[in-house]
């Protein structure tokens, strides 16, 4: 079965530290990839997405992610985190099935706490 694995369930960092959150998926075909973020008390929102082209994609608030097809990975990075980055981060994969009713496959999420 298709699945998405986020390696870190809880991450604690100090401000200005670098961040990398891992995401791996199990599907051999074409994929579209997403990172979503949920700030405390707020709704889930898109952080960045990869559909095609340059495998290094940039999102909002200084985040970026790199798609490495050979490793089935889409890791999220930020060179210097801020306290306001405290949130839950979800990786999601669309396995590009045919048809109009696409569902995303979601990772379990990573809770990031940034200490000031």
């Amino acid at each position: 079965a298709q699945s998405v694995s986020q390696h870190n369930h809880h991450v604690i960092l100090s401000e200005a530290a670098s961040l990398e959150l891992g995401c791996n998926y199990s599907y051999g075909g074409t994929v579209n990839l997403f990172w979503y973020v949920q700030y405390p008390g707020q709704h889930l929102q898109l952080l960045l997405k990869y559909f095609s082209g340059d495998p290094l994609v940039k999102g909002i608030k200084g985040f970026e992610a790199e798609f490495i097809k050979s490793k089935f990975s889409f890791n999220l990075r930020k060179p210097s985190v801020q306290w306001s980055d405290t949130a839950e981060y979800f990786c999601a994969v669309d396995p590009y099935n045919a048809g109009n009713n696409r569902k995303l496959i979601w990772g379990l999420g990573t809770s990031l706490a940034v200490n000031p």
Partner: protein
Amino acid sequence: DVKVTQSSRYLVKRTGEKVFLECVQDMDHENMFWYRQDPGLGLRLIYFSYDVKMKEKGDIPEGYSVSREKKERFSLILESASTNQTSMYLCASSPPASGSYEQYFGPGTRLTVT
């Protein structure tokens, strides 16, 4: 600006009650989704709909039903609420697969069943 609204942010119901959660989107999206979000379990898909009156079961449909009579509205129904349905419920919508079909989420409804 894209908007998905949910009828309640917080809801408290008693065991056995019938519960309706409403979701409305103003983006003319074909696809709509209901998830529940529980700590450590991520987002689990309950049902989704890709057109009016069309629905498909997600990963955890047991104990739930849905209704989509109009394109903009997707309702989740708990026929007889149970305590294990206490959760955060998220509604989302997306355009058809031919477009940029990222999902847009509502603020969620935190349901407590006592």
